[in-house]
């Protein structure tokens, strides 16, 4: 059995929440990251994340939820995102965002695609396909930057794996709501 319309809206609303959160995370980092080239790449990707959130927010409306509906994920996952946002060094920010957060989110999108009916839910699948393409480009840009600026190399090689493990600790991040609550949203 595939996902109900409500479950699809909740998934899409959760993804939208994450994209807005990540957009704000990069925005928060721009002034307090010293390296100019890093400010530039964050500035570029703020716009990518905003467009992705916007596309997801239009899709929620088609799924009988409000326009630009965001659903906060489970508390543990929100805590994880907040902790990640407080990352201080540029090296950890770059490696954490591009080598952990985006690939992990891509895996969650893949899991969604595997669980939904790709015909009935094709508009969502198309949006996700485009987002995954964006992620790939964003990661390529970060690789170029890391090659250009060797000082962005991460000394603590264990750190990305630790971050990935924390992210993966929550298999399901969607805080599903009772049907009545969803109807009132």
């Amino acid at each position: 059995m595939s996902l109900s319309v409500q479950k699809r809206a909740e998934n899409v609303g959760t993804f939208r929440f994450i994209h807005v959160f990540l957009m704000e995370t990069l925005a928060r980092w721009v002034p307090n990251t010293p390296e100019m080239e890093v400010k530039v790449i964050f500035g570029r990707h703020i716009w990518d994340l905003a467009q992705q959130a916007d596309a997801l927010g239009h899709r929620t409306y088609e799924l009988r939820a409000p326009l630009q509906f965001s659903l906060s994920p489970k508390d543990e996952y929100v805590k994880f995102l907040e902790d990640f946002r407080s990352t201080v060094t540029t090296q950890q920010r770059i490696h954490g965002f591009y080598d952990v957060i985006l690939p992990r989110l891509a895996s969650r999108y893949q899991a969604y695609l595997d669980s939904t009916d790709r015909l009935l839910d094709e508009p969502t699948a198309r949006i996700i396909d485009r987002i995954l393409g964006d992620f790939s480009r964003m990661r390529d840009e970060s690789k170029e930057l890391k090659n250009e600026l060797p000082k962005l190399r991460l000394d603590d090689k264990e750190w990305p794996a630790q971050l990935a493990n924390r992210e993966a600790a929550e298999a399901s991040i969607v805080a599903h709501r009772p049907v009545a609550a969803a109807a009132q949203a």
Partner: protein
Amino acid sequence: MSGLRPEESKQVKGMTLRRDPLREECFQVVSSDAEMHEWPGMTEISKRERLHRHMNNETGAIEIAAQCLVDFPDGPWELRMQLARQCWDESRHVASLYRRLREIGGRKGEFPISNFEWSVTCSLDSLAARLALQNRTFEAGELDLLGQLPAKWREAGDEKTAEVLESILSDEITHVRFANQWLKRMVQEDRRVLLKIAMAVRFLSAVTAAVAPKEGELSPTGQVFTQVKDRIPQVNIEDRRHAEFSDSEIDEFLRQSGFQSIMPAGAQG
């Protein structure tokens, strides 16, 4: 003017402003334009300093738009989208200016930089006030400047830089326009927004007066400072219209630029 926490603020000539955003160690950060190393004419060092200064101003523009996304999470989504888009545009401006700077032999940190626009704009506690200063004042001023600069670079034989500046100009029109549109809408919804804007403009005037060089003072490169009124560039009427300034607003800018005597009688206040 603002509810800045002590750790977020700095004192400059008696004014409380937002503390500078972070910069790499290669940069020497100064508090006002008067401390910048401005060179006359279009000599090689002057060209590099112009690009270097512009590059840092565009970096500040990314930071200001980004900080608006952080400080006003409940702003209308459509406006936040435009601020996010502005982050991308300003990032491309920094990258293109930095590329050009390197092509003509310059480097990051070659000259002092000032984060004046950030320090003033991000001291303000409302989104309307920030749009009024950053987009509608500083960036609109850039429209005037960029209306003239490409010709100056072409005269100096630098077509590539002229093209960079023309591309930047077209993006900046969009940033000024969306600010004009949103401010109009915000004022229509709540007249008290006008008070916020008026206070922001007054704050800018006070800060500008506080940091302005004294008459006869020399710049770090030994130039005599010209008065602010003598530094106002020619008003870029066409692009201000593209950015949705009204004719009466454009008339007011012309008046401030010393064109009062040649304006039609009806346009003179």
